[in-house]
Each structure stands twice: as C-alpha cells, then as structure tokens.
C-alpha cells in the first residue's frame, strides 16, 4: 500500500515534471533533424553516414558495383529490402550501368564518364532519376521505397524509383478482424513483414536488428523498435534474453515467447502477439519492441500489459464513445468469463438468501428434477462446451466457432429436456462462452478459461468465500507480474490516470497526447497539446 502510494505520488510528480520540458523535448528532436547534412566526394564516408542515420538497421541493403565506364567508377545502390522490386533494379539500373555501358563504343564510354548527370539521365531515364545533395532528403526517398545511387567522386545521391507496387497480396488477418480498418495481416515471410512495418512508419529512427537463432534451424529473428522512443534497457534486456536461447530449432514466434517471458510458470502471458501491422506500428510508437520470426505470421510485442489484450485496432477506426463501451464490455466480459459459473454455483448451493425470492423459487423449480449437484452440472456443461469449441476449431472453415456455439446450445437443450442439467446452467455456460469470444487475443482468454474451472471448484467447496479467496490469489499474482520491468497491471496498479485514457477507456485521438511513462523514460509527448478541433467565431461567420 505504502509502495503504491509512493509510486502514485511519484507518477504525479513526474507528470508535472514532463509538463515543464514538454515543448523543449519536441523542439530538440526537430532541430537535430533539421540540421542540413550534405554528401561528400568520398563514397565510403557517404555510406557510413547513411548507415548511422538508419540506426544500423539490418534490412538496409548497400549493393556495391562498378559502372563500366573507363576507368570504371565504384557505385553503391542503397535501398530497403522488400520495399523495392529487385527485378526492376536489375533491369533498369544494374544491367544498363554495367553491361549496357560496357557494350557501347570505347570513346562513348570514356566520354560519358566525364559528366555523371548526363550519363545517368540518359541511361536511367525510365526510373525518374533525381539528384539530391541533402542527406535527409535522400533518406526519405529510401524510406519511401526508392533506391539511392551513390557514385564515387560525385557529391550527390541519385534517387531512383524502383519501388515495389503495393497491391493487396498480403494475408487477411484471421483472428483480429476489422470491419473498417485495413485488411492486411502479416505473412510467413520475414522480409515482407518487415517491409509492412516500414511502410507504416517511414522513419529513419525505425531500427531493425537481425539475429539468427537455432543451431540447426538457423531461423532469422528481427527485432524492430523506435530508436528515439524505446527505452534502451528494454532493447538490451530483450537482446540478452534472445541471445540466451541456445536450442536446436525455432519454429515459430510462439517458441520464442516461452523463452523470453518474465513469468515462465504463470498462467498469464506477459508477451503480446498480433498479426496486424496496424497494431504493431502504434505500439512501436508507444516505445515497445516487436520481434518478427521468420516463418511465423505473428509478431511478438514486448513489454506487454494487461490492457493490450483488451484493445483491438477496430477501436481506433470507430467512434470513440462506442469504442469506450466496447473496451468496458471486454473488461466486464473477462470478469464474467472467470467468475460467472462459480458465482452461480456458490449462490445456488450456499447463499440462497441473496437470490431475489421469485428467482430463487424459479431456479429451485427448474432444478427440481436434476439429480446432480450444481457443481457437477456446471462442470458437465463447461466441459461439453470446451470439447465442442475445440472440435469447432478443427473444422475446415472458420465457421467452426459458430458451429461449436450452436452445438453447445443444442446439447444444452437436449440435456435440459432429458433432465440432466437445469436451464439456468445452460444460460450461464452460454453467457460465459459468448464472453470468451469477445476478446480478440486467445492467449489471455485461455488463462481465464482455466481460472474459471479453478474458481468453480472453490465455489463448490467454500461458496462466495472461496470465490473471494480465488479472486484475491489471482489479483495478487497479476499485480506481482512484470513484463520487461513494466508492471503488468498498468494502468490499474500502479494507478495511472494518464494511461487509462487510452488503455481502459478510449479517449478521442486529440486527447491522448502522451506516451506512458511506465514504458519509456524520455520523449513522452507524442502529440502537441490543443489538437481538439475548433472553429473560431470569425471562421464561423465566414462560412455563413
């Protein structure tokens, strides 16, 4: 209690502190970016400069070749893997500059070498060459999906349009559907997945680090984070944990999750996964770190907190009042999923006095012919439902889920008519089942499903008292969890009103201006203040 109060006060103080240097931090960031930086004659220096500007990201490709002039000139094409089309690069740039020039008459080759700009304009006409002396501008071109051609001795970069055509060829997200949002999801190819994130965040601060795990499988893993936002200790800790993994094979991102989680024996997941690029991108901007594993369409995000499992991307595409209600429905649903069957059992076997009289009589009446105690009855139906759900997943279509619900209801009805269970139990189990499907991330729901059985047993032996004991144990456990140093129960405990704006409720976009101070340490402002749209009186007059 004392500790949490202290944290709370500290939180307030730090928030107050942030207010003071708010403007400065944004300005600092911008001013360092705005400083003009120019290319030099030395190609190696230029390459070095670009390397450092992209946080040494591993998906940056520097392809060295020699332009077949006389004497030949060293040149480098810089681009981001998978944002460009390598066949266009080959046919429009590399082969004309090497083989194409090589086949020209000797005098033309020597002549052309004297004037680089004329040479390039002549040969690379189809891919819109642009001559840039500003490093920043050429950086933007790379991030947009263009390539940059650097030639030794020439103090400018040549931007060439070799970007890949973006069509709808990526997987549609299966578990995390959005009605109004983009219909693209990660695929099994690590390059495409990285490019998808690059397309969402075209920033030179987006760092991509690659490493290989698995002695035999040699799987490629990439960690992606914002160099200027993420807390460096989280990145370092993640790298340390990843390097610890000394196994023969990594088959999917879920394998990695089990090796890097903070609470390996806990029921609850302390890492988050998603299959949507538009979910990963905002989380990166919050200061989190994403882990992409080759061969897996699910991207892991750390640190994870409890509210991540209740947020859907759809929330940000809908009206915020509705989204807030949706969030609350999610949290309420989680409680119902974990506790409804146990409360039913407790009330019906121990605390009949809390049921309203009429309902008590009806419940007693409908349960009269049932030979089993309420616990056995509820357990029977819950197990039947779980079995049906599992069977539904194995069904070939995604319709399986619906089929399993319907199956459970039909089984329920038959069981009621046969006098095996009472109708109230069917309602309770059906409600629990429906709420278990409202949350989009199944790994958290699974934990609650297991806890539900645990609570049911407690309720059958000790009534509401048992449920309270169970709830207390769960609460204590959840509060003690941490994910990469971040308390798992943020913003519930420690209480953080600022973070509740986005993580429990869904305030309008213009009201969420700060990143969570629990995840990052500096660069806390993500937007300027006073973004709320308004029209002054004068403007109104004008429109009238």
């Amino acid at each position, binding site marked *: 209690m004392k500790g949490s109060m202290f944290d709370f006060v500290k939180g307030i103080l730090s928030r107050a502190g942030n207010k003071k240097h708010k403007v400065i931090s944004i300005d600092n960031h911008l001013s360092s970016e705005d400083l003009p930086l120019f290319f030099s004659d030395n190609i190696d220096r230029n390459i070095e400069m670009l390397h450092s500007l992209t946080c040494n990201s591993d998906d940056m490709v520097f392809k060295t070749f020699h332009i077949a002039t006389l004497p030949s000139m060293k040149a480098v094409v810089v681009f981001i893997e998978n944002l460009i089309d390598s066949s266009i690069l080959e046919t429009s740039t590399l082969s004309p500059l090497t083989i194409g020039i090589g086949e020209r008459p000797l005098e033309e080759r020597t002549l052309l070498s004297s004037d680089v700009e004329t040479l390039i304009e002549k040969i690379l006409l189809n891919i819109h060459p642009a001559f840039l002396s500003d490093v920043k501008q050429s950086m933007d071109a790379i991030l947009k999906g263009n390539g940059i051609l650097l030639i030794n001795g020439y103090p400018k970069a040549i931007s060439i349009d070799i970007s890949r055509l973006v069509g709808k060829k990526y997987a549609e997200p299966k578990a995390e559907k959005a009605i109004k949002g983009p219909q693209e999801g990660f695929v099994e190819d690590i390059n495409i997945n990285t490019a998808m994130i690059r397309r969402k965040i075209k920033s030179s601060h987006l760092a991509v680090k690659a490493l290989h795990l698995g002695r035999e499988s040699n799987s490629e893993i990439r960690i992606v984070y914002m160099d200027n936002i993420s807390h460096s200790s989280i990145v370092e800790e993640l790298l340390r944990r990843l390097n610890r993994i000394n196994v023969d094979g990594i088959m999917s991102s879920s394998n990695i999750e089990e090796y890097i989680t903070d609470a390996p024996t806990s029921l609850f997941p302390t890492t988050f996964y998603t299959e949507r690029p538009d979910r990963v991108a905002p989380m990166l901007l919050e200061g989190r770190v994403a882990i992409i594993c080759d061969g897996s369409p699910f991207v892991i995000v750390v640190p994870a907190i409890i509210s991540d499992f209740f947020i859907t991307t759809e929330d940000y595409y809908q009206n915020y009042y509705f989204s807030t209600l949706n969030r609350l429905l999610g949290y309420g649903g989680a409680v119902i999923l974990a506790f409804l069957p146990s409360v039913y059992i407790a009330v019906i076997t*121990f605390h009949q006095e809390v049921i309203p009289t009429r309902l*008590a009589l009806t419940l007693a*009446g409908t349960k009269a012919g049932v030979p089993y105690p309420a616990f056995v009855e509820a357990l029977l139906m819950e197990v039947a439902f779980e079995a049906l759900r599992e069977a539904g997943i194995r069904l070939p279509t995604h319709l399986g889920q619906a089929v399993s619900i319907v199956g459970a209801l039909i089984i329920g009805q038959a069981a009621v008519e046969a006098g095996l269970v009472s109708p109230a139990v069917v309602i309770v189990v059906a409600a629990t089942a429906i709420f278990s499907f409202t949350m989009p991330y199944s790994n958290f729901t699974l934990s609650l499903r297991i806890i539900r059985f645990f609570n049911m047993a407690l309720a*059958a032996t000790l*009534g*509401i008292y048992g449920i309270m004991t169970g709830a207390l144990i769960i609460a204590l456990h959840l509060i003690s969890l941490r994910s990469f140093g971040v308390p798992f129960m943020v913003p519930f405990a420690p209480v953080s009103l600022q973070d509740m704006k986005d993580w429990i409720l869904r305030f309008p976009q213009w009201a969420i201006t700060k990143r969570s101070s629990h995840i990052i340490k500096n660069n806390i402002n993500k937007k300027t203040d006073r973004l709320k749209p308004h029209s002054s009186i004068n403007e109104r007059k004008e429109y009238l």
Partner: protein
Amino acid sequence: MRRLNMVFLLLVCTLFTSSCWSRREIENLGFVMGIGLSKTDKGLYMAVAQVANPEAIAAEAPAQRDVYTVIKTEGLTVFDALRNLSLLAARRLYLAHIQTILIDESIAREGIGEVVGFLVQDMEIRLSSQVFITKTDPEDILDSPNILGQIPASVLEIAAKNYGANSKIYVSDLRRTVEAVNSPVMNYTTTLVEKIPSPTKYDKDRLMLTRIAFFHHDRLRGYLDYEEGQSFNLITNNFKNGLIVFEYNQTGDKITIEILKAKTKITPKYENDKVGFDIELKVQGNVAERITQRHQVHELNIKSAQEQLNQVLEDKLRKAVKNAQQKYSIDYFNLSKDFSKKYPKEFKAIKTQWNDIFSTADIHIKVESTIIHSALNINRGRI
C-alpha cells in the same frame, strides 16, 4: 519458513470458520414464504408455515392452489413449534425468504416481545419481512388461493409495500417491530389483515389490510380505522400519497384532493413541568376530482379551497390526537422520540409514566396546504 507455515495455518483456519460450510442444494430447500403464530386453548404455541412449491411456480401454467402448501404444528414454545414443522415437511425448511409474519391477536394481546425475539435470534429470517396481526387463525389467512396464482404471503407483502397509494394503513417490518419491542418507551403499531368474502360466487375470498393495530408497548390495545390511519401517517411522517375528500362549503361540490407531499414538523415543549407539542403539517396536493352539484360549471376558488383543506386536515388530526390522549391514553404516534431528543434529561425522569403525561400534554396542530394543480379547474377533465 516458520512464518509462512503460520500464515498457511491461519488461512486454513479461516476456511473452517467461514460459516459457508454446509452445502445445500437449492432444490432440496423448502422455501417458507410466510409463517403464522397463534396459541391453542391449551396454551400451546401453534406454528403455520406456508411453503412454496417451486415446481408448480416454474411450470408454464401453474394451478392456483398448487403453488404453495400449508403445514401446521404445535409446540411448547415458538421454536419448538417451528422445529416440529420439520417432522411434517418433506424438505429442509428455509426461512431466509419469509415475506410475511402473521401474529394472532391472542398472542398480540399478551405481548409480542417473546415471539419476535426468537424470530430475530434465528438469524435466517430477514428483517425486511412484514409483520401483520390476524383476528382469525393464521392458517386461514395463509391458505387463501387467488385467481392470479400468487402465493398469499407475497400478496400480503405487495399490499403492504403499496400502502403509499392510500396511506390509510401502516405495516411495520420485522426491523421496526424489533426496534419497538426492545425500546422501553416505544409503542408498536402495525396492520390487521382480514379475509373478506369474494364479490361474486366465482371468485375467491380476498385478503385485505383493514385497520392499524396499535399496541401499548408490545401489547395489542385496539385498532384505528382508515380515517385515523391517515392521521396517524400524517403525524408520524409516513404519509406518501393519499386522497382527502371534503365538501366545498361555497358550492357544495365534492372535492378530492390528492396529497402529493406531506411533511410534519414536531416541536416538543417543556414549560413548567408541562409537556407540549407543536405539530406543523405542510401538505401539497392537487385537485384530483370534482363532483359538482347540479352540473354547474364554475371556477374553483383555490384559496378558499386551501383554507378549507387546512380546516379539514386540522380537524382530522385533532380528532386523532384526542382519541389517542383521552380514549386510549397511549402515545402510539411515538412523540416520545422527538421529546427525548430535545429534552433527554427531563425525559429520563418522566419516561416511566410517559403515556399518562402524553394524555394530558398540550398539543397544537397547524396545517398549511398548497394546491398546485389547476388542470381540472373549469373544464373538469372535459376536452
């Protein structure tokens, strides 16, 4: 480690001390909806329990009489009689859902203190159940099936909760009953329930809350009719909504005033060893109905109607107070409560003979009324 063991030991102890031990399935319980207590000629206590029949209630179209059953036993004490019920009942009797408690007049005249004491000690009965007095045997009241298929105990409870529509009766719940019985000076009041014959031969007999029963402490002394019942509710600040009918002295119209708000302020006085009270009543109402003489349409003079309403209410209250003071010499309005709050020391000295002091007390009554609604003024509901 030792500490941890201690913590575990304590936790295990709490499991066994949590009164949640005995598991009982809901279908094995006999839900007692109402109980009635009376005395036989031999001096034995008689307990009647109305047990609901959940199967019939849950059925789609329950028969009227099937929804409950009535069982009855005798015993040396109330608890003994109630325990003897278990010899008859096929199920474990469950008292937590009791809605009405009927006490026979014979017990009430001797004092309800002992009976009520047991009901509270039992722990299972909730304090919100309503307490009634009966003149006939309680089983007669409890076994009155109605066409709607409701359990009679529930019917009584609903009727008791609806008293605010007329404010002519006042039903005490078990909490208030216990309060009155345990307090040395309070005089208890609740309502008498009677069975009245059905209006037609195809219908069933009905239960009706007929009069307020007033007690000298916990002993039944008499009954107040509806007229006095309204006054009782007005003075004790329990008046919710009710009708006052009077003949308008200027035209002879019959005017019905619906009282919407009534607030009584009681100011005790103690001068020269003489107890006195100022009762100030403020009411707000509207003209709900007007039956004119010879169908003459004319405007109602609100001001004079108000004045007359004041007079009518004042007469009403004065009569009620006079009856309490002179006819019964019992302070069933419990004015002692107000007096003891203002003059605690003085009250201590006179509390043993409070009822006598009350009967000679100087009580002034003042009524101030406002009639706010004039929609029925000249049109009287005609469009």
